[in-house]
């Protein structure tokens, strides 16, 4: 699991970067970062929901707590990538 990427700490609170907009799409959402002008594609509606609700949870781990093991790992990896690309930021 690459949640050890520098900077990303799943034990800390995170939220969607205020400079990022999420556009709903049939497959999930398109995320656009107005600062870096980068596009990302969130390919699962569950991931979109997770990202939107991130700031309601005290930590990232708490936000994914309801998921089963293999899925939890996949979503944590996705969140780590989103943190690397500045799409989500420490709350």
């Amino acid at each position: 699991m690459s949640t050890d990427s520098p900077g990303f700490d799943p034990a800390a609170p995170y939220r969607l970067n205020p400079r990022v907009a999420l556009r709903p799409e049939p497959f999930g959402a398109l995320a656009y970062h107005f600062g870096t002008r980068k596009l990302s594609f969130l390919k699962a509606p569950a991931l979109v929901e997770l990202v939107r609700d991130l700031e309601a949870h005290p930590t990232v781990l708490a936000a994914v707590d309801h998921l089963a093991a293999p899925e939890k790992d996949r979503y944590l990896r996705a969140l780590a990538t989103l943190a690397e690309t500045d799409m989500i930021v420490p709350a």
Partner: protein
Amino acid sequence: MKLVDQFKKGLSAPICLTWEWTYACNLSCTHCLSSSGRRDPKELTTAEIKAVIDELQRMQVFYVNIGGGEPTVRPDFWELMHYAVTHDVGVKFSTNGLRITPLRARQLVATDYVDVQISLDGATREVNDAVRGPGSYDTAIAAMANLADAGFAGFKVSVVMTRQNVPQLGEFKAIADRYGAQLRITRLRPSGRGADVWDDLHPTQGQQRQIYDWLVRHGDNVLTGDSFFHLNALGSTSLPGLNLCGAGRVVCLIDPVGDVYACPFAIHDAFLAGNVREAGFGRVWRESPLFAQLREPQSAGACASCGEYDACQGGCMAAKFFTGLPLAGPDPECVKGNAPTTGLAIPAQGKDHSHRKRVALGMPSVPAKPCDPSPLAVR
């Protein structure tokens, strides 16, 4: 499902919207895909363009590619650009460099969400001006120098690949590097006036291989607008990009009079989806029967039996259409040489705003014998 398969079914709004703001242009490039030159009297007004920008903001279209014609000849160009970027619609505009003065360059650097793309079709004055016209090379280079001097890092230098400039790929890269810009190369299309020069200018089979090999080596730092996916059948390395025709799915064009076409290379009634004046842009994007059809699975036609179809996807719809080829079947530049070359009915182009040829002033016609005394002239 793979993301690319999702894209084929269309998105809620385009990712890459090209929007031409005028047909007017100071140049008369021989390969102009929109046959630009003269302004169309029915072009969208300032207020109409702002209304479409408002709609794009609501649809969350995060950036648009503005072109023409030469968009900066619109007197309201800077006002509209400012309006877009302050309404969450970023702007990348294509220009031949005409209005990129040192002052404008400094203003552009200070504006968020703006990117500039300078067109250059030859790495030397001779090759460029043969296509784009006398003086156009110097104009483009001066614009690049002004942007670089103002500190505009990473603007784009955009090259349409032709038989004459494929050997200059390295030189184009060097020019872009010299001005701290990023090189973008795209495919020549037989669209607009491009149809007139297609046979002479489109790269040879050997040059297509050269483009492919060069992109495999340098592709990570070079943009292509995904326009060379038909070359993927040349090797096992897929070129960077989506590798699909995005027409009506993730891409479309709004032309200067508000007509919406499936892609920027298809200004023709066969690809007209609607007009923003009638129903707004969103409704055309969502409800056009043409776009619905393009979002259905497409037939491979004559390509179905070719093992490379997955790699090349049959190539470019517009390139096929304007060379008289069936849309379900090989691209005219099919690297396997499978495209028929005879018996093709080339369709007429759509709108033509080309500059009118100069006509010498004077008598419209002179009688063959100015002093013919006969009271009757028979032709």
